[in-house]
């Protein structure tokens, strides 16, 4: 049984990919004009561990030098080039639009934490359902306000963003921003400023990353 074609990214660039794939296997372009998929052939699909994730990331980052690319989710593979070619043809408009959206830009991830203020006593137990919900509403409002103080100034410096959503850990803020390559330094400086200026808020950012979070839809 033949191996798999492991796919890293989709591009509309005509350039040759730089670097090699996982395990230093050569990269190949799989053409479906005007698009192409960048892939490498493997006998056995790679195992999931930290090392291979970083290796994969390096491959994709090398591809950024080709121009605009759409990174694929880790582990994406096809049995035959034909399957990939057909898919690229089928979703041509979608991919071309996405490439336009991310051209010349990179992704920056931002995390923030609002410090818990440790008081000595828990708040009094609410006396009714309505009181409970009112207190929850007040907590939500405070969290939202804190999140906005971080998000707004950064969104202003970005082409697009995936805004923070509240999940089970309420105190944690996580967002992604699509930033012009030329604007990355200024963005980083702003993060540093906010980290210093905002009381009780710790912020950090990582990047630049290939635009994983902006390959479909996304908001400004």
């Amino acid at each position, binding site marked *: 049984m033949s191996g798999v074609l492991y796919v890293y990214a989709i591009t509309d660039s005509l350039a040759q990919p730089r670097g090699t794939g996982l395990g230093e296997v050569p990269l190949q372009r799989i053409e479906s004009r005007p698009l192409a998929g960048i892939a490498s052939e493997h006998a056995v699909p790679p195992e*999931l*561990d*930290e*090392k291979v*994730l*970083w290796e994969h990331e390096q491959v994709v980052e090398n591809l950024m030098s080709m121009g605009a690319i759409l990174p694929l989710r880790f582990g994406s593979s096809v049995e035959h080039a034909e399957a990939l070619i057909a898919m690229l043809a089928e979703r041509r408009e979608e991919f071309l639009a996405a490439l336009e959206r991310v051209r010349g830009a990179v992704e*920056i991830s*931002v*995390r923030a*934490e609002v410090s818990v203020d440790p008081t000595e006593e828990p708040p009094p137990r*609410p006396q*009714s*359902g*309505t*009181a*409970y*919900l009112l207190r*929850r*509403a007040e907590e*939500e409002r405070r969290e939202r306000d804190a999140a906005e103080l971080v998000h707004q100034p950064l969104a202003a410096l970005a082409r697009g963003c995936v805004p923070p959503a*509240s*999940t*089970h*850990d*309420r*105190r*944690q803020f996580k967002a992604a921003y699509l930033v012009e390559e030329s604007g*990355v330094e200024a*963005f*980083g*400086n702003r*993060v*540093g400023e*906010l*980290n210093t200026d905002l009381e009780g808020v*710790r*912020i*950090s*950012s*990582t*990047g*630049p*990353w290939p635009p994983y979070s902006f390959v479909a839809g996304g908001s400004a």
Partner: protein
Amino acid sequence: MSARRQTRPARHSKLLAGDPDFAPLGDELERLDGALRRRVNADRENLEKGLAQLVLTLIELLRQLMERQALRRIEGDSLTPDEIERLGETFMLLEERMNELKEAFEIEDEDLNLDLGPLGRLI
């Protein structure tokens, strides 16, 4: 615990700016650790506790999601005072039940740790 972290290769940092010294970060990372290293520990007790934790995490997630949506509806003025009271009581009860369950399974608030034994850790 910290010994494991030190085995990480030195070059993998993509920090751009700011201070990554967050408390919650530690937990997220511990939960991730297991998924990236195959855990051969086929301890049955571990597995059962892990499944309980998995279920509780999902319930907690849904509970907070529902609570937030209820709050939005209240803000939007589309509920009667009576409905608000009933909703509030339900959520209070839900929260209390969750705390009892966490206590019963000895799970800390921040450490909803999804250890599924041989399946590794999730989230």
